[in-house]
């Protein structure tokens, strides 16, 4: 059946129907007034998701810094094996927690935790990692 044969009961063009212009319509000012708030909220969500997306790179950075510190400690002859192992395990614990937080807050498609909660958890984990620099028994204060 051709489209031209369709006999619709609704008139295609009704000249009696009043034409609405932009000035005639009643603008929803309340809804438009919320647009800046939505814009700010979207910007915050974008920055949070970018922050979470960079957390694996931060984990790699932490592990590299920890590895360099252990290398330096071994070359300078300081630190026992037990002490080094405990310190490396604590750093790796923080890295594992950050990776888990990244998976729960960013990488998982279903049942993802809220971005705000994931970002605040990542900041708390960074605070934990910030207390890791000094190793007991190290020859010098370093990371």
């Amino acid at each position, binding site marked *: 059946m051709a489209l031209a044969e369709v006999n619709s009961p609704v008139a295609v063009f009704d000249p009696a129907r009043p034409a609405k212009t932009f000035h005639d319509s009643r603008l929803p*000012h309340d809804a*438009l*007034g919320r*647009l*800046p708030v939505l*814009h*700010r909220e979207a910007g915050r969500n974008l*920055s949070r998701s*970018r*922050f979470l997306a*960079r*957390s694996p*790179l*931060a984990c790699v*950075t*932490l592990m590299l*810094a920890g590895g*360099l*510190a252990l290398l*330096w400690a071994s*070359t300078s002859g300081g630190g026992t094996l037990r002490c080094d192992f405990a310190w490396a395990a604590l750093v790796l614990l923080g890295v594992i927690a950050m990776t888990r937080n990244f998976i729960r807050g960013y990488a998982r498609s279903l049942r993802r935790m809220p971005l705000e909660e994931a*970002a605040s958890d*990542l*900041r*708390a984990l*960074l*605070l934990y*990692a*910030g*207390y*890791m*620099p*000094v190793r007991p028994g190290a020859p*010098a*204060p*370093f*990371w």
Partner: protein
Amino acid sequence: MPDLPAPALVFSFAVAPGLALTIVLRDTKGAAAFVAPASLVTGSAALMGNRPLALWVATAIIAAGAVLIALPMLRRVMRCNVLPQPALR
């Protein structure tokens, strides 16, 4: 690395992870959460370590940490002033 004097080596090892994380994360609060305790703890350890130039090293580490925390905040404030939020009314 072994050719460097010890205070410079200590300073670089204390500041480099904070600098790297500040560049990687690009988040003011996240960078501050790592840099503030790291610089304070490392600076305190440098003070208590009886190393040569301990006071100068500790001061430099804490000052570098403060700069690392303040720079992203300053950049954020400047960006907020340059790009104001859109207003419809």
